[in-house]
Every structure is written in structure tokens, then in C-alpha cells.
């Protein structure tokens, strides 16, 4: 992932070198970020909701992995996971952080670089 962040800086640097102005670069990043965040958050929530709905109904049979050992400690081996609403927000936040690292961070880096530095081959 670091690699892609790194490549992203060079890509944006190339765009600025050939004549894309800061406003356009910024606009493009914002659009991309909004789009990715929206998709990511939507996908994450849907996935969370579906697994939650299924496992919440059928239960997870922990006996399959832990045998009866859980019973011995006084826990039932069938658990019914439910995700609290705040969990969704945490997941969404994680998505936003990911998008930030892969898209906004390189953009800020590239905007600060001199174009000559961004297209330098290392």
C-alpha cells in the first residue's frame, strides 16, 4: 500500500508538471475521495449488516472450534453476535481513514512538492 501511495505522488506530480493546476488536482482528489468513501462506507455497512443479520439469527456455533471447553467455563457454545450501532460508525471511520491515507495524503504531499522533484526518477 505504501507503494501505491508513493506512485500516486509521482502520478499527481506528473499531472502538475504537464500543466494541471492546483485547483484541478484538488478538485479531482476531492471527487475521488468522496466517491471512494461513499462506496467503501456503503459496502462496509452492507456487508456488516448482512453478516450481522445472518449470524445474529442462526448463531455462531463455537463448539465447532472450541469443543465443549466453553461449556466447562459456564459459557454457552452458541453465541448470537449483534453489532451495536456505534460499531458501524467505527467501521465507517476506518474507511475514511483508509481513503485519507491512500488519496488525500499523497495529494497534499504532491501539491507541496516542486514538480521537478515529483517527476524525478529515484
Amino acid at each position: 500500500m505504501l507503494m501505491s501511495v508513493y506512485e500516486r505522488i509521482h502520478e499527481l506530480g506528473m499531472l502538475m508538471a504537464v500543466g494541471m493546476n492546483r485547483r484541478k488536482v484538488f478538485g479531482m482528489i476531492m471527487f475521488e475521495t468522496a466517491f471512494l468513501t461513499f462506496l467503501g462506507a456503503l459496502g462496509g455497512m452492507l456487508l456488516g449488516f448482512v453478516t450481522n443479520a445472518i449470524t445474529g439469527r442462526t448463531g455462531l456455533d463455537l463448539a465447532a472450534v472450541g469443543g465443549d471447553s466453553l461449556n466447562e467455563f459456564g459459557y454457552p457454545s452458541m453465541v448470537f453476535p449483534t453489532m451495536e450501532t456505534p460499531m458501524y460508525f467505527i467501521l465507517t471511520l476506518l474507511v475514511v481513514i483508509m481513503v485519507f491515507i491512500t488519496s488525500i495524503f499523497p495529494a497534499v504531499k504532491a501539491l507541496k512538492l516542486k514538480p521537478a522533484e515529483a517527476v524525478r526518477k529515484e
Partner: protein
Amino acid sequence: MTIIKTEKLTKVYDDNSLPVRALNKVDLEFEPGEFTAIVGPSGSGKTTFLNMIGGLDKPTEGKIIIDGTEISKLSDSKLIDFRLHNIGFVFQAYNLLPVLTAKENVSFIMLLQKTDPKKMEARAMELLKQVGLEDKVDVRPSKLSGGQQQRVAVARALASKPKFILADEPTANLDTESAFNLLDIMARLNKEENVTLIFSTHDQRVIERARRVVTLVDGAVAKDERR
């Protein structure tokens, strides 16, 4: 008529502890239609010189005048616009956007210039044909060889109808055959379309193709031959 003129062009890199004088009072002039190779050993200042006349970095001292405009005096944002409309670039690497096809890579520069989309498409096809890639228009860079990628970069550099094209070691990552092929295309564009080209190289094989050879040594012009 002079299209590029440098006067006592000097660049000192001093962000590190030891200042480096990469260019030292370089006076050069380039005419429209010239095909020039900037040669010299590694570290002689070729990249620095191209970055300066390409408006990618600013000189420490001296002047750069392009078609009557002293670009060393332009603000950063004016300079970006100046580059877009006046200069075509071919870099050693990181030329193309991996998510775009060859045609789209050539087109986006015209998009930045707000070209009519219908003309844009036709021009991108025409340029890719000129560099011999008419059968690769819808292919992404990862599916192209290094030589083909550089040819797309040349087509892209031409797309904006620049006053001149700068190429910093365009053949550095290419095998001999692809290197010659790229230079042949550049030589043809220069001869037939009167495109002004300046490229740097330390590759003896491709210097022959140029019609003018400027040799840099330690940031100064050591030789300037026309043939």
C-alpha cells in the same frame, strides 16, 4: 528567431548541507525546428537544465526567456498554465496514468486545455498513428512495452501543440532497438512536422540522431556543435 534563450542561467541546490552548483552561467539559444541532444556525464546538469527551461524549477540566478516571456519571473500558478500551453514533456518514467488507456492518456492534456471533445478524439488517434501505435489505442500502459509507453508519452507531449518538446533521458530504460525506434520517430516528427525537440542523454547510441549536440560538463557548456 529564438524560441528559448538562457542568460547566465545558474542553479545552486542548497537544501542539503553542501551546496551544489548544478548549472553555472549557461548561455544558450534554441531556434524553432531544432533537434538538440543535451549530453554529458551523469551529474553534469542535464536534468537541471531541462527542468529550468521547462519551468519545473526556478533558477538561482539568470534569466530564461521563452518566446518573449521571462518565465523565471512567473508565479507558480502562471507557470503551470504556461507549461500546459507551451511545453510538451517526456519524462524518464512515471509518464502515463495506469488507469487510462493510451488514447485517454493522450487526450487528457487536451481536456485540460478545454479542447472540443470531438476534435480531441480525432487528434489522439492521429497522434498515436504518428508514433505507430494505431493498434494500441485502447490498451492500458501496463500492457505496453517500455518503448511503446514512451511513444505514447511522445504522442501526449504533442497533443497540446506545444512550442517545443523536452525529453529527459527518454531512452534510459529502453533496450537498443526500442531506443533507436523512439529516436527515429522523434527525428521524423522533427523533419516532417517541424517539431522542436530537446532531449538529454548519456547514451552514445542515440546522440547521432540529433542535429545539434550541446555538451555539459560540471554545469557549464563545454561544446555546442551543429551538423
